């Protein structure tokens, strides 16, 4: 039983590491800030979840599991928030996405108008 848990935990950690590498390749290869933010934040949260879950399997149940939960909660709170703030700052400073269909944005291309329109319904 303990051996099975060990393999499950180790497997989750290894898969999490593969996710992180995939995210890093995405950050390196994608063409603009937004796609890079997308790659980094998704794989950071996903990879962190897998790895911390794997470590929870590896650890004895108790205070360590609780601490792993806190680390997970912090990462899940802060990484998406930082990505969101970064993306909105990049957008309002005039960066425009390079790929995708952005016809609907043509009407209000000034940064101020665009962000105001989004944040004040």
């Amino acid at each position, binding site marked *: 039983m303990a051996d099975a848990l060990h393999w499950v935990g*180790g497997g989750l950690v290894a898969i999490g590491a593969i996710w992180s590498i995939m995210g890093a390749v995405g*950050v390196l290869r994608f063409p603009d800030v937004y796609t890079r933010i997308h790659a980094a934040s998704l794989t950071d949260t996903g990879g962190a979840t897998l*790895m911390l879950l794997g*470590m929870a399997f590896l650890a004895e149940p108790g205070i360590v599991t609780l*601490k792993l939960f806190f680390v997970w909660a912090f990462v899940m709170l802060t990484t998406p928030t930082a990505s969101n703030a970064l993306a909105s700052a990049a957008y309002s400073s005039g960066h425009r996405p390079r790929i995708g269909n952005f016809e609907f944005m043509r009407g209000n291309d000034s940064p101020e108008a665009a962000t105001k329109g989004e944040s004040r319904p």
Partner: protein
Amino acid sequence: MLVAAGVAGLVVAMALMIVRAIVGPSHYDRILAANSIGTKTVLLIALIGFLFGRPAFLDVALVYALINFVATIALMKFFRYRTLASPLTAAPEKEHKNG
């Protein structure tokens, strides 16, 4: 063994992110890479703790998660607005009036 593979994978991912942090091209790319390196460091420290049988390292991982967030916000705010002192958002009641 699998945990060691996890450590190796994280180190490779950090190295790739460092390339992005160095080449840029915009400051937002650099902040993004720095934030991502921070998250990977958190995981790396937790894993090293397990590898060495020292789960007390998780305290340090928690501090990293915190500091990483605050440093990212500081860099973002500075690069975008060239200030650290101004509030990032208007006060809620003002928002209400304007909206």
